[in-house]
């Protein structure tokens, strides 16, 4: 059990270099509390797996230090870091039974049979594997195999952290729900530090207390799921989180209002004057937009398309070239209609050069 600190970590696969473009992971500092649930979220190639491998010790960073509590483990090999990792595809020992698979990490560490047996049986019960304990692991379904991988991580009581590398990739949607909630439950039961790497925002947000959003080798925001949803600090976070993502549309500021294509919308806050060269955009979640009949006050838009996806409807609307997604339980307008787009100003964010700015309440 340990706090994990990353100090000035940077990594380049081509070795130390002065060209920042060579770095798959640009300089970053992070501290992970013992017992927390964290997610590393980002598109492929953003450096999240590189970061995970640095923590597990499969990769030695070009620069910086990895600290477990206050011990420098940067150069310590994986087996001596006392961590566990679950991979994208289930890794099981084919010739062993489920029991032997689960017992393997303890057996390797020379624990006695009397210690191993009750622990394996208890864990198998928690994972719902008790029926298959003496079956060869090879013959189970993908989700059961992934549970075994997870079990091998959980069996050691003293691990510093359990790392997950997109563990639900090969699992069917229905079973994803089951495994995900089970994982969350196990986290609460065991209190291990868990770090979960994924490109799937639902997985990241539902699993983690704190999500680290990465893009092109850098951390763009660290925050609770709520903060990432309500107040993304960067337009990338707004776009990446939420489905559909945040609507981000160019606008101009004018005192307490903003102008989208010359239509004025009054805001809750007053923003400082910005230089002419600055790129100013408004960001609003589709959930905070509402389509009203054209007579009502709001931004006049044309409805391009309305999709019924069962739980709610998603409309695509446009003002000239700018499109917005609107999510509503029920939409009365039809494709081709004009409507009025109403902003929930309490949830309207303003971005200057892709970064969130705050205004003044007045």
């Amino acid at each position, binding site marked *: 059990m340990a706090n994990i600190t990353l100090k000035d970590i940077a990594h380049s696969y081509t070795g130390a270099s002065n060209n920042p473009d060579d770095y798959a992971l640009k300089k970053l500092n992070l501290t992970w509390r013992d017992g927390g649930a964290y997610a590393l979220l980002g598109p492929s190639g953003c450096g999240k797996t590189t970061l995970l491998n640095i923590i597990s010790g*499969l990769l030695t960073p070009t620069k910086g230090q990895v600290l477990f509590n206050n011990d420098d483990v940067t150069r310590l090999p994986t*087996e001596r870091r006392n961590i566990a*990792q679950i991979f*994208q595809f289930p890794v099981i*020992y084919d010739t*062993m039974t489920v029991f032997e698979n689960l017992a393997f990490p303890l057996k*390797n560490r020379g624990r006695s049979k009397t210690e191993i047996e009750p622990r394996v049986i208890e864990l198998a019960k928690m994972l719902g594997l008790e029926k298959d304990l003496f*079956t*060869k692991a090879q013959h189970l379904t993908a989700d059961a195999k992934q549970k075994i991988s997870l079990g*091998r991580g959980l069996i050691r009581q003293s691990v510093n952290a359990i790392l997950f590398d997109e563990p639900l990739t090969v699992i069917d949607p229905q079973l994803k729900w089951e495994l995900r909630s089970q994982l969350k439950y196990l986290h609460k039961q065991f209190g291990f530090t868990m770090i979960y790497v994924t490109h799937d925002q639902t997985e990241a947000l539902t699993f983690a207390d704190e999500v680290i959003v990465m893009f092109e080798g850098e951390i763009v925001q660290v925050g609770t799921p709520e903060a990432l949803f309500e107040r993304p600090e960067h337009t990338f976070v707004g776009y990446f989180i939420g489905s559909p993502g945040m609507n981000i549309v160019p606008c101009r500021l004018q005192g307490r209002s903003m102008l989208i294509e010359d239509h004025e919308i009054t805001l809750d806050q007053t923003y400082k004057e910005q230089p002419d060269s600055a790129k100013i955009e408004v960001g609003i979640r589709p959930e905070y937009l509402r389509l009203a009949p054209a007579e009502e006050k709001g931004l006049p838009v044309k409805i391009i398309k309305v999709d019924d996806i069962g739980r709610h409807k998603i409309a695509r609307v446009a003002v000239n070239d700018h499109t917005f997604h609107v999510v509503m339980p029920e939409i009365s307008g039809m494709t081709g209609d004009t409507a009025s787009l109403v902003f929930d100003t309490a949830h309207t964010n303003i971005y200057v050069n892709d970064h969130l700015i705050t205004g003044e309440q007045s």
Partner: protein
Amino acid sequence: MIAKQTNQKAWFMVLPVFLVVAFSAVIPLMTVVNYSFQDTFGSNQFFWVGMTWFRDLIHSERFHDAFLRQIMFSSIILAIEIPLGIAIALTMPKKGWGVPVCLISMALPLLIPWNVVGTIWQIFGRVDIGLLGHTLASLGFDYNYTQDPVAAWLTIIIMDVWHWTSLVVLLAYAGLCSIPDAYYQAAKIDGASRLAVFRYIQLPKMQRVLLIAILLRFMDSFMIYTEPFVITGGGPGNSTTFMSIDLVKMAIGQFDLGPAAAMSLIYFLVILLLSYVFYTVMSNIGEESSNGGA
């Protein structure tokens, strides 16, 4: 879309295969079967003798000896080449410039024709001019494959190991390369020893290719002819007269077509039977590891 039609002409496409197989396998085999039940004194006169040749052969000491020698040879070859091949494959690099170097040097012995391999080792082992023979002799070893059966066996076995271990290496290497990295990483994390990694990851994942390697090496070594024929000619005495050499001696040397035909049939059946046994046993191990306990 083209309407459905049954085209009987397709059968003609199979005809060449039928012809080739008939001429190269079926007719010769039938001729051998035919010979094995008859006796001839030349000039194309044949007499029906029934099972005589088979009965004689089964009770013949010469056949027993050749058969035992053959079994012994194949067992030794498998016992050396399979573990050695796996061991070499395990030490080969997985990436970098070493990979092509290793692969090419491994493939080289496989490219040399059998009789040339025989000739190479025949000269290599000669006490007067051969590098190996001369060196051993000058070091004081009593080595002479033309007189000492042990030396003759050693020479042939070492030659076969030199010639064919690469095949096992290449197959095992292919099996090892197909294991995803995640397995090794997981094993590290689980604290598995080097031996455990081999026992629980590498060996199970190599099982299929090893089955092929064992079958190929068994069949080949069981039918070995050219190399011992070139090196020792079956001697000294009969000490390296393997079944195929004995067969040729009988058929060509003594022109005993009937017994030779009977022997080749038994030989054929033995290979078929043993290959089948190997295959069943090996695939059962595979089955067991996939269905076991269920």
